[in-house]
């Protein structure tokens, strides 16, 4: 066929738009990431049209790396990535194999290669997600087996591009050091996605999404308290973006449960069980003492 192609019809048929809309709805902020995914989607769609007209070109490389501060959504997006690429028809199965150093690197000579290959085989047809990828390379130990795993990965990323997509993730600084020592890795990755930190309004939106997913809601005062909490918390050390918010919400749930428990008696409504009040949030140490109630060892519920 040589006539003009109806791109809109093609777009509708591939349900790419649905994927992108889902992404917009379910992930807050992350503008640059969404833009990049949109670009990838466009590329794959055009690629498919080109193939139909017998315009040959090599399959695009889709290996990616996600860098960013803790809690900026790297793992969440990686989980989505498998679904997205599957729906776009780039990978065949659409499963995600999530591994860390432990799953790839062996404990003695000759143990690493089979272990890494095993993982690669499981990931074929899907996405191989390597979290904290910089741990693979340990410059302080020249006999570290991580290097071997890296070499096998490089080989696979080059030769079996059609069979799997490798996604590396890690904190920005450490990943840069990692790439400096492994230039081959850097050049085989086409898409470097940097996850920006969230702004306070974005974090509030994320908090609401998280609560809604667990059938909780904030009272009006609680929302004000949480806004205040987020502003304060962002200035404190060890701030981990959405992860800090999730922890704060978990603690708020704990306090809410305790509050209801202490109140005792009857007359507990469905509303009571669902609502988080301002006092549940204001009890945090962030307000009283200006120190993060880091960790789950916080006993001041």
């Amino acid at each position, binding site marked *: 066929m040589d006539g003009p192609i109806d791109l809109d019809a093609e777009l509708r048929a591939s349900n790419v738009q649905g994927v992108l809309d889902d992404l917009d709805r379910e992930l807050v902020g992350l503008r640059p990431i969404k833009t990049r995914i949109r670009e990838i989607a466009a590329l794959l769609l055009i690629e498919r049209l080109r193939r139909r007209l017998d315009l040959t070109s090599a399959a695009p490389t889709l290996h990616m790396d996600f860098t960013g501060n803790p809690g900026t959504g790297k793992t969440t997006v990686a989980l989505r990535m498998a679904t997205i690429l599957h729906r776009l028809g780039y990978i065949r199965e659409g499963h995600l194999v999530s591994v860390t150093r432990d799953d790839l690197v062996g404990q003695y000579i000759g143990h690493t290669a089979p272990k890494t290959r095993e993982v690669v085989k*499981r990931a074929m*047809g899907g996405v191989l997600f390597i979290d904290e990828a910089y741990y693979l390379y340990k410059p302080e130990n020249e006999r570290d087996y991580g290097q071997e795993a890296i070499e096998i990965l490089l080989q696979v990323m080059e030769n079996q591009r*059609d069979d799997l997509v490798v996604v590396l993730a890690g904190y920005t600084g450490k990943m840069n050091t990692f790439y400096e020592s492994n230039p081959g890795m850097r050049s085989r990755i086409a898409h470097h996605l940097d996850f920006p930190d969230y702004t306070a309004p974005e974090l509030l939106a994320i908090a609401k999404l998280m609560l809604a997913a667990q059938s909780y809601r904030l009272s009006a005062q609680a929302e004000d308290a949480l806004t205040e909490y987020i502003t304060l918390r962002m200035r404190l050390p060890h701030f981990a973006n959405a992860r800090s918010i999730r922890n704060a919400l978990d603690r708020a749930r704990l306090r809410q449960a305790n509050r209801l428990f202490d109140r005792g008696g009857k007359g507990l409504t469905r509303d009571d069980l669902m609502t988080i009040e301002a006092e549940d949030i204001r009890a945090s140490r962030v307000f009283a003492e200006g120190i993060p109630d880091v960790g789950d060892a916080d006993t001041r519920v």
Partner: protein
Amino acid sequence: MTDQGMRITQGQFSFLPDLTDEQIAAQVRYALGNGWAVNLEYTDDPHPRNTYWEMFGMPLFELRDPAALMAELEQCRKSFPRHYIRVTAFDSTRGWETPRMSFIVNRPQHEPGFRLVRQEVDGRQIRYTIHPYATDKPEGERYP
């Protein structure tokens, strides 16, 4: 008889022409879809009673896509271009716990076949057995 050799027929599809790689991948996809673990085995002893072949690498558990097995098969063919190679799909479901599929994916170029051996025993009885010509040579040198 002219020397056409003797094409051995073991496992599934062995009366059909050799499967193409796409057809092999499709069969493997079917096995994986059923939750069976696939693996590769090879041998150069064509005797039908030779049940236990050598395993090539480990069984491939938790696969989702035939690509991994096809890569493995390519390796195996490189190492053993003139051996018999078969794919076996193992079903670990309780009550089955057995191979559910098994088919040959690689065979020697020329299969010389079998000799009929007659052994004279008590009285005028004769016992018949078959003997593969290939096994007259040591392992690894059987198929030129």
